[in-house]
């Protein structure tokens, strides 16, 4: 359950930045290729915000899909999982999205 520590990090950062103001919504970006499960994150968010200025805040999760660029054929292609294989057969690929784990914004007041 690393989602608990990850969500705790989000709540800590958000509460610090809110400086006492009530937090209404928190928006995060969790790439499809991170080992973070959004449903677990939502569950942990309700737990870790309890008793803080972010209690009751909405959690908005944006999930960028996995994409990669092939160094052999220069094509961009979708990556459903971490198996790094271009449709052209090359495994020399670079992940270009899907590993994001960011706090995008929050709404206060």
């Amino acid at each position, binding site marked *: 359950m690393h989602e608990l520590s990850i969500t705790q990090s989000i709540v800590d950062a958000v509460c610090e930045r809110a400086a006492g103001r009530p937090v209404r919504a928190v928006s995060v970006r969790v790439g499809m290729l991170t080992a973070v499960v959004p449903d677990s994150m939502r569950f942990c968010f309700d737990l870790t915000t309890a008793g803080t200025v972010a209690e009751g805040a909405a959690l908005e999760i944006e999930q960028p899909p996995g994409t990669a660029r092939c160094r052999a054929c220069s094509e961009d292609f*979708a990556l459903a999982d971490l*198996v790094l294989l271009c449709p052209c057969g090359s495994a020399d690929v670079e992940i270009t999205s899907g590993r994001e784990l960011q706090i995008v914004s929050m709404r206060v007041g």
Partner: protein
Amino acid sequence: MCGTCGCSGGGEGGTGTVGTRIAVPHAHPHDGDHVHPVAIRGTAGGGETITLEQRVLAKNEDLAARNRSWLAEQGIVAVNMMSSPGAGKTTLLERTIRDFAGLRPVAVIEGDQETMLDADRIKRAGSTVVQVNTGAGCHLDAEMMRDALTTLAPVSGSLVLVENVGNLVCPALFDLGERSRVVIISVTEGTDKPLKYPYMFAAADLVIINKIDLLPYVDFDVARCEEYARSVNPALRSLAVSATTGEGMRDWYDWVAGQY
């Protein structure tokens, strides 16, 4: 909404109704990259939106960077050892400590959810050891690493082996400031483990396949396992060993020497 990739956001909507849109470029696997408004700054109705755009694990990563530079200054190599429970990690550590005796100081950071059992085994093998009980936690983090290093006070030139909590998912996400990451699997597990736990194998520098003395009795394909591991991490190196018989351990020691 973006019709091809289905990502949220899209051309309309967002998190509020008033104010300036802050567009964030967002790469797409299809033609026509575009931007999605992800936040709206304004004060009417829904309060004020504050753009943060910060990494979730920024605090841990900063601490890990500090650990890493401290270790480098001391000429200490820290290796983060990860595996599922029962892969033979503690046995591999015990043998390593015994074989390094007189050659290089070895210190161990032992992460366990509960008990001192592994730390006691490590101490008996002749190494200084710090036990970190994570309780409900399923991984070590950079702060635990810093505190453990402070207590352990390894001498310069040491090899610090970090026995992370037995788990092939959570530890992969937390940088400790280590020099390198090793994932250990044993032949009593499935050949397809790298495909089932791709994040761990993607994050590792070396995979050690342990318990090869049991290969005649189990259904495990070393070459195929290595192939799966490299499908998620083409740069991953691999070694096959038996910590019980000592077979292949020389390769592991050579790899450690190569980290200095």
